[in-house]
């Protein structure tokens, strides 16, 4: 018997979880539209998220056009610019990245990777998507109401967010707040499913410490989201009341146009606390799934086990826990007791430790690995580099004394775009190139993918490295234009024009990717069930794409972790998680799905 696992156990325990009763769709409508199958819901989530993400991409072009070529485009007024900023930020962070990582990848991968037939409550899972779609539609509707969408900045700070004079204070801000509340309700329904499925519905032999890191990342991020979104929900409710009923939760006494307003006695900083108590974990809600997925991509495409699996798991958990005690580092310039600044700076810098552990472990996984520069690997490598760059500028901004001069400059823009914009998006792309064959049965086109990767990766640096420099020059963010500002040199304008041109090119390159997705669905090379020769359960399904109920007549039984690559004595360089130890030496992959031999006791 040839086997090696980090947690060798000599028998597989008997089944504790009974067979799941699935909802069997009877019509086209319940099969493809109001589907209760997590895989269909995942694809619905992904398409909706990517569609609304394209809107946000176009908005970023508009902003770049204005910054690169001020006073050129008559259709971009100052009000429009602020609306573009706000909607771009909110859509990208919440409606694209959160929904895509948790609603998209979470729904698709969790049941498959833990060996379940579906999420534990498929009906609630379906409701989750439809409420998310409603939230997206409400958000889109704000483009068409009088006054347009809100222009309060994605942080929606009161009092300016709801005062007249801020674009969209008529209806846009209300629709934004309602949409956020709906998103949170919808997400909670899905999130409860993800957490309970991971905790309570795993297949035989799948201990938590054998879960692929992808699942650990998505699971921890979902827990964070379930605990962080409530703060945003409360903030949104209270601001809605301030705007609609004239309450003064966040509104101090204000004089507008020489007249004392009705508001008085509220605390604007309270909103900032609520917002960032959500907002900082949100960074990790986006980052942790990316951490998990990239670990798996690297391991599979370098044919080597993840270095320090246990430490990787604990790092994810510790980062998640720490992310709840750092929120006020977003508020250094809002005014706070210096001791609080000291506390939040310290906790912020401590997060660098588990994060650095993760980066070292990725690099050590690659070290002496058999690195194959496939498309997912390219994106994974791009992620590591970008994440390190973005993370290091985070150390600058985490320190109070360095943050104060850099705050509200382009440096901040560059930092968070690197660390939570470009880096997770690279993982999203890598993950789509990796799992697309499982979803469709066909490979994505490689030359198109190469073009997509290199333009996106190099373009992202051409865009955001200059922004760091502009930030050092003191170019403020959120300014509509900077003509005749004496401390900013002329060269800054040239640089801005350069960045704009690159941003347009990178944006167009994403169309190559979208085209590739459509083209490969029809013309792509047939992939077979396991094109990457990976070990985790989703690649061992009976059919590709996996059918209703995911696995064959019986659920797979797991004998080892997901990183059994290059075992000495094994026939292949990879051993699937559900291959019986007796079969490892002969490499008999014939009947892995479902009908595998009974476990040895």
């Amino acid at each position: 018997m040839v086997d090696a696992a980090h947690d060798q156990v000599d028998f597989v325990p008997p089944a504790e979880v009974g067979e799941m009763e699935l909802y069997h769709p009877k019509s086209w409508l319940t099969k493809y539209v109001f589907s209760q199958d997590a895989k269909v819901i995942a694809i619905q989530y992904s398409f909706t998220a990517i569609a609304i993400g394209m809107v946000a991409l176009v908005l970023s072009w508009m902003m770049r056009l204005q910054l690169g070529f001020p006073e050129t485009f008559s259709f971009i007024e100052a009000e429009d610019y602020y609306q573009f900023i706000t909607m771009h930020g909110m859509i990208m962070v919440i409606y694209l990245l959160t929904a895509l990582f948790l609603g998209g990848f979470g729904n698709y991968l969790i049941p498959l990777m833990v060996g379940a037939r579906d999420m534990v409550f498929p009906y609630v899972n379906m409701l989750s998507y439809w409420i998310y779609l409603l939230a997206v539609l409400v958000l889109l509707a704000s483009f068409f109401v009088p006054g347009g969408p809100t222009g309060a900045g994605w942080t929606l700070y009161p009092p300016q967010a709801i005062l007249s004079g801020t674009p969209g204070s008529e209806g846009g801000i209300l629709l934004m707040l309602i949409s956020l509340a709906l998103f949170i309700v919808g997400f909670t329904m899905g999130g409860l499913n993800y957490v309970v499925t991971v905790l309570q519905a795993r297949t035989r032999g799948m201990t938590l410490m054998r879960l692929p890191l992808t699942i650990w990342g998505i699971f921890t991020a979902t827990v964070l989201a379930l605990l962080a979104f409530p703060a945003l929900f409360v903030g949104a409710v209270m601001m809605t009341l301030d705007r609609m009923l004239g309450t003064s939760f966040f509104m101090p006494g204000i004089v507008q146009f020489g007249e004392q307003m009705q508001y008085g006695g509220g605390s604007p900083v309270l909103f900032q606390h609520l917002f960032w108590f959500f907002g900082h974990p949100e960074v990790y809600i986006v980052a942790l799934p990316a951490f998990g997925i990239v670990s798996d991509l690297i391991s599979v495409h370098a044919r080597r086990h993840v270095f320090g699996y246990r430490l990787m798991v604990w790092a994810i958990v510790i980062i998640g826990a720490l992310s709840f005690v750092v929120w006020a580092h977003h508020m250094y310039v809002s005014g706070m007791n210096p001791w609080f600044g000291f506390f939040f700076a310290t906790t912020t810098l401590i997060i660098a430790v588990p994060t650095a552990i993760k980066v070292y472990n990725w690099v050590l996984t690659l070290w002496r690995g058999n690195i194959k520069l496939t498309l997912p690997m390219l994106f994974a490598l791009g992620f590591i580099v970008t994440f390190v760059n973005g993370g290091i500028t985070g150390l600058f901004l985490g320190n109070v004394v360095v943050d104060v001069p850099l705050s509200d400059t382009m440096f901040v823009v560059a930092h968070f775009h690197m660390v939570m914009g470009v880096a997770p998006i690279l993982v999203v792309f890598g993950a789509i190139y990796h799992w697309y064959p499982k979803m469709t049965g066909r490979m994505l086109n490689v030359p198109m993918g190469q073009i997509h990767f290199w333009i996106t990766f190099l373009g992202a640096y051409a865009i955001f490295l200059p922004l760091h420099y502009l930030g050092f020059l003191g170019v403020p963010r959120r300014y509509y234009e900077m003509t005749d500002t004496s401390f900013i040199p002329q060269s800054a304008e040239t640089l801005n024009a350069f960045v704009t041109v690159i941003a347009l090119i990178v944006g167009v390159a994403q169309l190559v990717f979208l085209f590739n997705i459509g083209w490969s669905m029809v013309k792509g090379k047939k992939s077979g069930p396991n094109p990457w020769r990976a070990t985790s359960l989703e690649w061992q399904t009976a059919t590709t794409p996996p059918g209703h109920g995911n696995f064959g007549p019986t659920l797979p039984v797991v004998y080892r972790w997901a990183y059994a690559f290059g075992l000495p004595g094994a026939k292949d360089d990879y051993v699937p998680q559900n291959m019986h130890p007796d079969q490892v030496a002969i490499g008999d992959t014939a009947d892995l799905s479902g009908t595998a031999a009974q476990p040895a006791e």
Partner: protein
Amino acid sequence: MTQTTQTETGHSLAMPDGMQGFVKDWSSDQRAFKNVPWGKAMMWIFLLSDTFIFSCFLLSYMTVRMSTTVPWPNPSEVFALSFGGDPIPLILIAIMTFILISSSGTMAMAVMFGYKRDRRKTAILMLVTALFGASFVGMQAFEWTKLIVDEGVRPWSNPMGAAQFGSIFFMITGFHGFHVSVGVIFLFAIARKVWRGDYDNETPGFFTSRKGSYESVEVMGLYWHFVDLVWVFIFAFFYLW
């Protein structure tokens, strides 16, 4: 609702002591929480999330109460009712609290009879719980009416002092009352299912096609006790402070 039929627990593994055992327990095979059905696990996690919502509301209330410069009205006077002359402080709130806590008792009994497969008693006790809940909401409506019509309290203003008194009161008790109302609706729905015998016959759900089970009663009970517990905090922070 769930179908975690315990097929066989097998021989229990020897668990190491201390921290190692804690980790081993959590990361054990198939299920982290042994013998906890899915619905119950899901409700617990939802309640954790909901706890964060109510905590944020109450923390915001404390912040706003400290940030306003206008004096805060004295709750003992505002929430007093006169019976035959002398105002009795907090009398209505005391009755409401008593009713809600009694409803937790009937709910707990319903859960017990549910596990004894006593269809009749379970359904009746759930109905009693629902009626207690409905009367709580009714008294809350009475209290709101009194504040709005008689005292002139509005979400944006308040003749007795700080405007935030009215805003935060209507928001938090409204949000809690919404929770109670949703609970009452579900209590009626589940009581109906119990009465019809859906859980004895394992009738499949209309939308989910899951077999009905008495675990639904317990899951409902968890929610109801939570709503009750939240009220204790609202009572303490709002009426006694």
